[in-house]
């Protein structure tokens, strides 16, 4: 049998991500994986398992809990932690609010999204994490297109996009001064489609939210929002039942659903292929201004 010595694009992306994850464990003293419950951080957790098998994943999962999560996300998180035999650390936004470290937004479109930054930075500092891995992808948003795999953060947790270290070949430079840390993005080069194809290829279980289901929702400014204790209804908004699924797993009050019958990963892949809107197009947090993501990233957001 003649061999072809090349990898499929998914296998090449997998090899790259595993290399980056291993580089983090080799170069840093106290790494962690930022786990949101979304499909990207789930894929990251499964890649981490592959990277160190048959040993356990040698770093904890860190969940920044806004208190506004979908119940399905929490259920999945606890299942996964048990499945992988990995340690879970929870940073609570509610606690940050109670301690006066963060101030809750008010109004109909109030969100705890930007408050997460305070809790995230406090959690990193409290546990002395020197590298925090995340599932961010460069295709998600224009400010992320220039993000490095190894992204340096100063002692205040801030990102300086104009003064990033050049990143060449597979040579990642994680050297830093005391108090500084790195954010690392092993699946930088994956697209939404790659993530779904990989979930399919590897048979990775995902939260039920991603599959088509019936749910009580309202429609606000064109977005389909799930009803929840944290969504303040306007006088003219009437909840109704719709068959929907979610393309991302953010906070309940700000994550829009899409009308969908896709109840298997294959159907989701077909739907993503035909979709004419980006997945972040359903996120109210990115719509605040043209540079919403860039501004949040500079101050230390994921």
């Amino acid at each position: 049998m003649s061999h072809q010595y090349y990898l499929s694009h998914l296998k090449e992306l997998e090899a790259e991500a595993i290399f980056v994850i291993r580089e983090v464990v080799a170069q840093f003293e106290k790494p962690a994986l930022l786990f949101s419950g979304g499909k990207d951080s789930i894929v990251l957790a499964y890649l981490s398992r592959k990277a160190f098998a048959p040993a356990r994943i040698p770093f904890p999962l860190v969940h920044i809990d806004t208190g506004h999560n979908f119940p399905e996300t929490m259920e999945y998180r606890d299942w996964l932690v048990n499945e992988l035999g990995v340690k879970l650390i929870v940073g609570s936004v509610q606690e940050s609010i109670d301690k006066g470290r963060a101030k809750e937004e008010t109004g109909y479109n109030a969100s705890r999204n930007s408050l997460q930054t305070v809790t995230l930075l406090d959690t990193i500092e409290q546990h002395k994490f020197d590298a925090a891995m995340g599932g961010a992808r460069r295709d998600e948003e224009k400010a992320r297109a220039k993000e490095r795999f190894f992204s340096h953060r100063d002692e205040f947790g801030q990102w300086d996009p104009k003064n990033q270290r050049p990143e060449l070949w597979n040579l990642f430079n994680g050297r830093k001064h005391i108090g500084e840390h790195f954010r690392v993005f092993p699946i930088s080069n994956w697209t939404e489609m790659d993530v779904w194809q990989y979930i399919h290829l590897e048979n990775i279980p995902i939260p039920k939210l991603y599959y088509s289901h019936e749910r009580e929702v309202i429609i606000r400014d064109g977005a389909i929002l799930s009803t929840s204790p944290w969504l303040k209804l306007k006088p003219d908004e009437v909840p109704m039942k719709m068959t929907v699924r979610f393309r991302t797993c953010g906070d309940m009050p700000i994550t829009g659903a899409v009308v969908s019958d896709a109840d298997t990963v294959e159907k989701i892949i077909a739907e993503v292929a035909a979709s004419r809107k980006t997945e972040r197009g359903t996120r109210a947090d990115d719509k605040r201004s043209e540079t919403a993501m860039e501004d949040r990233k500079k101050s230390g957001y994921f």
Partner: protein
Amino acid sequence: MNSYLNNQLLRFTTAGSVDDGKSTLIGRLLYDSKSIFEDQLEAVEASSARKGFDYVDLSLLTDGLKSEREQGITIDVAYRYFATPKRKFIIADTPGHIQYTRNMVTGASTANLALILIDARKGLVEQTYRHSFIASLLKIPHIIVCVNKMDLVNYSEDVFDKIVEEYKAFSSKLEVSDIQFVPISALAGDNVVNRSENMAWYQGATLLHMLETAHIESDHNHIDSRFPVQYVIRPQSKEYHDFRGYAGRVAGGIFRPGDDVVVLPSGFQSKIKEIYTGSEVLEEAFAPMSVTITLQDEIDISRGDIIAKPNNHPQSEQDIDLMLCWMNQKPINLNTKFYVRHTTRDVKGVLKEIQYKLDINNLHRVENVDQLVMNDIARVKIRTAQPLFFDSYRKNRITGSVILVDEGTNETVAAGMIV
């Protein structure tokens, strides 16, 4: 629907001068391959209208950061993604101005292919030489020369032929074996994704077809076996009490269970017991796979060691010749110390000699230089505190490359290709 399982990944870099339509070309590739989403297009349409354009400025699709949008220039490497049923593409979009050589080198370091843009009205300009030289220096195996703005020269075959001829004469000095040429108009869409009806004289492929069919299977070295050890896996569990797995990414050659191997620098020999990724046992491993290797004998191996074959060692030296691209605001002088990162090894080093600096516009050598400033490219000698185990960059882009890291600031200050 599972055809994607056989898709390949092609990484390419784009380089062009300020106004030769690079951003428009990328926008065109994304747009015509239907990789642009409605909400992205709407945002760009709105921006175009705000700026008073009467057409949709596709270049706005690739504008990244706020400061860039304000200045209307690209200041850093940005990565873009698109896919066709045949391949997935990663574009390293790099700026073309002179002060950003460092960005072009960065984008080129991981690329299989370089797109060089030439404005049909202007022909070869200084930046054409510079970009092509960097592509050659970084050993990008494939180049596609896009002669753009053909719509502005009446789609003239003569103009195209003249540019091709001139480029071929110049490129005989470069070390790139695979060069293709295509006449396009990024703005009008001719020969980018769809065949042009305006250039019946052109019988060649469209740009996208070239990207989909470039022969990238031989871009990795599959001859000289190299496995830099990245991390040692020791499960510390009852079940795997004595287990020692060597984790890493194959940098060259092919490894199979039963192969005789040598570990450097110790020189100990053993045989490969098993190779796997996750729980999947593999019959062989080749670049760029990330795997874990176990050996039949218990020997002391740590990060930075390299596993090779007994009859095919990498070179081992402390005095190393490099082509160096200096990337930092702060210049470097002779005898400056730094860290050298090579594969998974990190050692101290010092700049011993600058043999010559290259004028990358004409490849002339400038001698008697004792300092390098940002964006300089020079042939230098460094000495490292411990030997490195390397191949020439020409032979292997992974085991032949280094970065230099400043001891004080920890910044990545230079990229080096081992001669």
